[in-house]
């Protein structure tokens, strides 16, 4: 039933990408997104696509898992693409009917935009598919550690985030269970008008809230019982430490950025010349 929703869609296999330090992947994703906006011209995009394909291949996640994320933004993409096609000034595609308001410039823009969006989504999907939510928050906490100097409660925020992330699948599971239990008692969540449907949610929501509160209280108690005291002097069981492959990955990223910049200037020169 409700299991079809995928949040925190980690795909558990072992691959070089999975093993990378989460900070590397965070930085890499940000850099990749920036590079998509810096890149210009066919070669720039080819380089970005090549890099993406390489990482996807290395991650050993089946490609159809990547494209799932794309479905959700399909509509947004269609709208923005058609806006670009029709509302960009320039030479019309042809002098018949609807084609009159389409422009070559718009078409070009739209194609680049679509490619950019697709790669952007794929790039960030790769990160969530290869990094557990916990590793991600760890990475964020450590990566943003410098903000502590500005009195930003980075640790507490990261803790809240990881607890929230941890609770999502639990709550989904719980919802599923309670839904089944009430269905077994004859509850009907699927038919009737809107009022009936809302009423039908009561037997689901009340037990769900109660169990969420109970879990939260239990968790607080369990943390207390283990003397949890927040940030100061806490050590990690698995502290994040850069390994050789992480440094290698940073190297690859730098090389990739340089390549994108070079291609950009080459392209500009080519267009101008």
């Amino acid at each position, binding site marked *: 039933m409700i299991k079809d929703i995928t949040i925190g869609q980690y795909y558990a296999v072992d691959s070089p990408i999975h093993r990378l330090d989460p900070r590397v992947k965070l930085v890499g994703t940000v850099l990749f997104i920036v590079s998509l906006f810096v890149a210009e011209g066919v070669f720039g995009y080819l380089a970005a696509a090549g890099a993406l394909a390489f990482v996807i291949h290395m991650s050993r996640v089946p490609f159809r898992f990547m494209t799932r994320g794309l479905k959700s933004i399909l509509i947004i993409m269609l709208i923005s693409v058609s806006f670009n096609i029709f509302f960009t000034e320039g030479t019309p595609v042809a002098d018949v009917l609807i084609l009159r308001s389409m422009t070559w410039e718009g078409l070009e823009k739209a194609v680049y935009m679509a490619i950019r969006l697709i790669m952007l989504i794929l790039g960030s999907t790769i990160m969530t598919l290869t990094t557990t939510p916990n590793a991600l928050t760890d990475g964020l906490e450590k990566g943003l550690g410098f903000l502590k100097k500005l009195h930003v409660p980075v640790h507490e925020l990261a803790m809240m985030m990881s607890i929230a992330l941890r609770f999502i699948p639990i709550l989904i599971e719980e919802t599923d*269970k*309670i839904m089944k*239990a009430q269905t*077994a*008692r*004859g509850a009907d969540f699927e038919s009737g008008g809107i009022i009936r449907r809302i009423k039908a949610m009561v037997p689901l929501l009340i037990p769900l809230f109660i169990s969420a509160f109970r879990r939260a209280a239990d968790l607080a108690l369990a943390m207390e019982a283990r003397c949890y005291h927040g940030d100061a002097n806490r050590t990690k069981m698995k502290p994040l430490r850069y390994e050789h492959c992480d440094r290698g990955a940073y190297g690859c990223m730098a090389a990739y950025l340089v390549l994108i910049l070079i291609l950009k200037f080459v392209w500009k020169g080519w267009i101008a010349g």
Partner: protein
Amino acid sequence: MAITFEHVTYIYEPDAPVVQKVLDDISLTIPGNQFVGIIGHTGSGKSTLIQHMNGLIKPTEGTVKFHGEDIWQKDYPLRQLRSRVGLVFQYPEHQLFEENVFKDVCFGPKNQGLTQEEIEQRAKNALSMVGLDESFYKRSPFELSGGQKRRVAIAGVLAMNPEYLILDEPTAGLDPVGRDEILDQVSRLQKESGITVILVSHSMEDVARYAQRLIVVDDGHIRFDDTPRNVFRHREELEKLGLSAPQVTYLAAALKKRGFAMTEDVTTIREAKDAILQALSAERENRSGNGIQKKEQVKTDD
């Protein structure tokens, strides 16, 4: 009158990197008026199996039939099926939601569209069956103890008067008296009104005592499907599956090994008592009392 499984296979996450068949090609018939026990180690697929019986989950492959009709064919009245096949979940206390106990038990019959009178009558019957008297009716289900909540939840399903009653570990976390009380009631109900009870349990003693038929599930396969007595003859195999025979069976085996002229084929305390007494009197007849007598006396106290 039967629930029938034909080559049922079930996979929770068909897209996962490692596909796990939680049920693997299960075929099974559960006719009316039986007390069936289901045992299997943790995670063997018992809960998944029983959720197929009232159409809460749809088999990935294969068919589930109720009275000969495929329950997943188009326009099959699944809601009606669910009121005929009552299912009490593992930890059912988490499903309580009404402001008081009585109303919560009324939820099932109300969904069946009965009249107010009938609903209340059923709720009262069900509550008395699980041993909760009127002083509980107006109490909030959330302020009860775990065991009391469990009883309310079981009553909530009993009140629907199902033809098949499926109980998923109904007695986990109950005190011994409460456990016997509930199982005795269910067993009486099964005999008196001719319904079928399917009991999932981790207690070999309970299934040995109540069930007429015992199904052993192991990693999605049915390993044994026979009377408890016949199943418990396979002690070693059961142990390999992370299960065991009832303790009295081990006692009988140990006594036999010590040279007692008795059968190993006992599964309940009563049978054990009879077998031991019989063996004792036989022994006494053979030769008038000697040294072993004392040891035997101690053992009968078990």
